[in-house]
């Protein structure tokens, strides 16, 4: 072998190429990481894990279920109790998904959920089929689940420590109040109340009771919202002047046209009890299964879905009650006899709200919170927080873009280390998890962070976390994340939106007196309950 220069070049020439490619790859990657790390360090955003709750020790908490419909069944699953029918359905769905090569994890998620130290001991449902299903599925040889005819019987039996209320809205407050007066702990679905008067009565009842009260806004357990809170607190967004939240659904289930059970009839349903305080009308299956469509029992978009968005943001921003509300909309997509609007736009005004400012003091103050909803379109519009320095998209994922006119980031924008179209922060705890979402409605909730959250990369049902927190507080004391103050604000702001839509005028809040500013000659509660003329 002759060591000529030509030989060396042809033999060893590839080494510097290898070195160059290696260096370029390493330098580029490490450099980008470093840049990112520097930016994050500057922003100082630290996703915080929820504090672990103390264990629910001792004897199992004896739980009674009031209302065992769609939501009632879901809540029971979060407590670790699934019906035989649901398990059979999920096994079928899992087999189908497997055949089609789709991920489907509902059953697996349910089975891997940590057990809670509770026992379902009682059930209350005015529909025999529902009540019997619970008794059959949840009874064990040692412990038969008892069916009670009324919630009062159950609460006063002395056999239940806590109740879970998943009934139509007009029953939420009367049942909660009855339980609290008997020092029975309460987990109640949203909206917390159906009228203004009830909202005050319930607040009083909580204040005078030894029992623990939690409103079912499970998203308060979602990790991305805790991160969002940190981001806003650190002033990354600057002054937030506008928040836009949305509902877009375009399917029967999303428009509350739930299935009507074939065995439903006046013999199997205690219609009198279902009606309660609602106007007396003859037996009506449509009203029974699809009660969300009438003001007599529900409150449509404002009570059902706006409350989720309002509370999501109230959890992040703690903005409290709006000073005023204006709403408009109509029944435009489902003219099927309902009397709640299916297209609704609500503007909440918070004139004193401030998230900190990067500009001259006192230049910025005040914020509008917009809720825009249609049940006739399924396009996914994200929740956006619009600040002077940055915009944030908030859901289960979280993304922040710097604003081209930002004061805080002016230098970085000019030097090119930030660009308005490029996110400066992205938080996606689901990146390393495979999600099997089955329906449009569950996708709607999942995208909003309302169904589950991620802890250490593992998917966890947020309702499970929310109920676990409630049970832990029952046993160990402490505070729940959605207690009476949060519930009061959620319910009142929803009622203000409903009133504004019904009256076609601005509804104002008096923060000193903690009342809706009275309108002469108008009984606000009567308006809230009445069926608008011309529809329904």
């Amino acid at each position: 072998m002759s060591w000529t220069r030509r030989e060396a070049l042809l033999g060893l020439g590839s080494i510097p190429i290898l070195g160059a490619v290696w260096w370029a790859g390493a330098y580029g990657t490490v450099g980008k990481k470093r840049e990112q790390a520097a930016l994050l360090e500057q922003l100082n955003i630290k996703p915080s894990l929820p504090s672990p709750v103390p264990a629910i020790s001792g004897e199992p908490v004896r739980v009674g279920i009031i209302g065992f419909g769609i939501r009632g069944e879901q809540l029971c699953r979060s407590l670790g109790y699934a019906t035989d029918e649901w398990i059979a359905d999920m096994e079928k769905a899992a087999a189908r998904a497997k055949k089609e090569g789709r991920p489907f994890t509902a059953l697996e998620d349910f089975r891997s959920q940590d057990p809670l130290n509770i026992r379902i001991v009682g059930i209350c449902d005015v529909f025999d089929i529902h009540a019997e299903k619970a008794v059959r599925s949840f009874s064990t040889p040692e412990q038969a689940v008892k069916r009670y005819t009324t919630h009062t019987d159950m609460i006063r039996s002395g056999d239940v420590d806590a109740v879970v209320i998943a009934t139509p809205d007009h029953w939420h407050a009367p049942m909660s109040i009855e339980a609290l007066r008997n020092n029975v702990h309460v987990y109640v679905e949203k909206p917390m109340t159906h009228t203004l008067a009830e909202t005050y009565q319930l607040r009083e009842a909580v204040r005078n009771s030894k029992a623990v009260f939690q409103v079912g806004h499970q998203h308060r357990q979602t990790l991305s919202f805790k991160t969002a809170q940190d981001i806003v607190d650190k002033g990354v967004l600057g002054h937030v002047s506008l928040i836009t939240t949305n509902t877009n659904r375009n399917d029967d289930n999303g428009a509350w046209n739930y299935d009507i059970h074939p065995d439903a009839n006046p013999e199997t349903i205690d219609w009198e009890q279902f009606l309660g305080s609602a106007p007396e009308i003859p037996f009506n299956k449509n009203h029974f299964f699809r009660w969300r469509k009438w003001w007599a029992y529900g409150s449509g978009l404002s009570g059902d879905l706006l409350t989720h968005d309002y509370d999501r943001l109230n959890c992040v921003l703690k903005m409290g009650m709006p000073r005023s509300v204006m709403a408009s909309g109509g029944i435009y997509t489902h003219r099927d006899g309902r009397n709640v609007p299916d297209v609704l736009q609500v503007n909440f005004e918070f004139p004193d709200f401030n998230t900190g400012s990067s500009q001259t003091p006192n230049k910025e103050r005040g914020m509008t919170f917009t809720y825009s909803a249609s049940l006739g379109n399924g396009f996914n519009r994200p929740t956006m927080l619009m600040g002077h320095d940055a915009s944030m998209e908030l859901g289960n994922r979280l993304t922040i873009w710097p604003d081209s006119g930002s004061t805080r980031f002016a230098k970085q924008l000019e030097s090119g280390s930030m660009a308005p179209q490029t996110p400066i922060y992205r938080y996606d705890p689901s990146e390393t998890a495979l999600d099997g979402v089955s329906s449009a409605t569950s996708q709607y909730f999942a995208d909003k962070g309302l169904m589950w959250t991620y802890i250490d990369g593992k998917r966890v049902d947020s309702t499970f976390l929310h109920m676990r927190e409630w049970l832990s507080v029952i046993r160990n004391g402490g505070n729940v994340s959605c207690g009476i103050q949060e519930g009061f604000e959620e319910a009142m702001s929803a009622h203000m939106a409903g009133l504004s839509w019904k009256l076609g005028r601005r509804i104002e809040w008096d923060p000193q007196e903690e009342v809706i500013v009275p309108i002469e000659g108008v009984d606000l509660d009567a308006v809230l309950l009445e069926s608008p003329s011309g529809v329904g």
Partner: protein
Amino acid sequence: MSSTSNKWGLKQSITLLRILIGWHFLYEGIVKVYNPDWTSFGYLATAQGPLKPVFQALTSEAVLPWVDTLNWAALVFVGITLLMGLFERAGALVGVGLLLMYYLAHPSWPGMAQINTEGSYWIVNKNLIEAVACLVLFYYPTGNVFGLSRFFSKNKATSKTELS
């Protein structure tokens, strides 16, 4: 004369092809080595086509770290062998295997969603072309034209006909 110069051109072209493919593999490997957050999860989890269950099975918690490590190790191995012109036939073969797997995880067949592709493809895409190019490198080693094999080959490219 013309036939000799053609062969010389072919040899040079394939050598160049080898360098470029080695370059590409090495860079893809190195970028992953130096990024601890990198994972093949997304690519595998969104797999399509007949082998979808196989690729999705690789995303299980127990297997994924091995898949990730094997992937970057294989990329770097192909990169180094092709660039250096040493064990290049083994490298080319591993390259064919890797590229066929990438291709089958997201085949550019009609009716399948094209994810993260910068061009338009029908059945044939760049992964498939690069796989065939690696096949050429396997059958036509050029390490003794440019590369470390020169020092181990008795039959150096001094003669202009050695590859005929």
